[in-house]
C-alpha cells in the first residue's frame, strides 16, 4: 500500500521531474534481503532517455538514467507489485523521480515517487498531447496544462523558500 500523493506533493517532493521515453524496460532484475526482517525485495531497472527536465536535481544526471521499480523475477524471487509504476518499451512518460528507495540507489538510478501515482503516460498527436496516470480516477490532462501546474507548484515552493 502507498501513501496518497497530490500532484502538488509529487512536484514538491520529487528530486527530479522529467519528460522521457523508455528505451529499455526490465534491463536488469535483482533481489535483496531487507534489513533485520529478512524480507526479500525484488526490483527491476529500466532505462529511460530524458527529453526535458521540468525539475532538475542539484547534481548532474546526464540524459539517460535507470529507473528502479519494485517487483521483478530472479532465481530466488518472483514478485509482482501491481501499484508500482509500470514502464513499457518506447513509452513516452512524465516521471516524478526520487532517490528514496528501500535500499540505497547507485548514482544515476532513481525510483518513481508514489509508485503508479508518479508516472504519467503521454499519448496523442503533436497538437493534443495528453498525460494520464494508471487508474480510472486519474483523469487525463493536457500536457501543457500539466507542465504549467508543475511549474506553478515549483514556483510557489521556491518563493516560500526565499529569504
Amino acid at each position, binding site marked *: 500500500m502507498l501513501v496518497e500523493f497530490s500532484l502538488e506533493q509529487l512536484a514538491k517532493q520529487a528530486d527530479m521531474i522529467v519528460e522521457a521515453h523508455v528505451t529499455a524496460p526490465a534491463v536488469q532484475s535483482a533481489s535483496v534481503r531487507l534489513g533485520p526482517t529478512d524480507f526479500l525485495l525484488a526490483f527491476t531497472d529500466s532505462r529511460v532517455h530524458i527529453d526535458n527536465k521540468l525539475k532538475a536535481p542539484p547534481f548532474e544526471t546526464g540524459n539517460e538514467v535507470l529507473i528502479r521499480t519494485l517487483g521483478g523475477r530472479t532465481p530466488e524471487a518472483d514478485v509482482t507489485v*501491481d501499484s508500482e509504476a509500470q514502464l513499457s518499451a518506447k513509452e513516452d512518460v512524465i516521471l516524478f523521480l*526520487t532517490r528514496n528507495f528501500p535500499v540505497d540507489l547507485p548514482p544515476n538510478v532513481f525510483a518513481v515517487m508514489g*509508485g503508479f501515482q508518479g508516472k504519467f503516460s503521454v499519448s496523442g498527436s503533436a497538437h493534443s498531447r495528453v498525460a494520464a496516470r494508471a487508474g480510472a480516477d486519474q483523469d487525463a490532462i493536457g500536457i501543457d496544462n500539466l507542465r504549467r501546474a508543475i511549474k506553478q507548484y515549483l514556483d510557489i515552493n521556491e518563493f516560500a523558500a526565499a529569504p
Partner: protein
Amino acid sequence: MGFSTDYRKWRGGVCKINLTGPGWDPAWVPSARSAMKMWNAATAKFKFMEDASSAANIHLAAYKFRSQGWIGFTQLRPSKPGSYLTGRDVLINLWYEFNPPHSTETAGDTAGPYQLETILAHEFGHLLHLNEDLSGSATMMRPVIKPGQSRKLHNDDIAGIKTLYP
C-alpha cells in the same frame, strides 16, 4: 468494477499469522486483530488465525527505510500459478507515522498518522490474493491511503473473499 484475483487460495481456508515478528510493537497487536476480524466476519469459510509459533504462515514485521511512498508490503510464496499459498511476511514501513503510534520508533515522515488497521486490512486482502483496485472505488484494495483515513470492507471486497471461499 469489482475485485480481481488469480484464484490462488489457502489450503483449508486458514491463514495463520504470527503477531510477534521483528519490530512488531505489542501496542499494534489490537490493530492486527481488528483487521483479521474484519475479513473473518465476511465469510465463515475462511479464517485468519493467530499463531505465536514460528510455524505460522505469515509473520508481521516492521522495519524503517526511506521510502518513495510505500507504507506496507505483502510477500507471498510460492509464486507458482495454481499452487496453494503457504506464506511469508507482511512488512510495515516505520518511516511513516501510525495510529496507534509505535512505542519506540520515531517516524521520518510526519505527514501522518496513517490508520494501521486499514493498512493491515489492505495487506491481508493481498494475503487472500486479492489484487490492487485502481478503479477509484472506495474498496479496501484501493492501493493508496491518506493520513487519518479509515476504511471498512466494501461489497467488492466481500464478493472477492466469498468467491475464493464459497
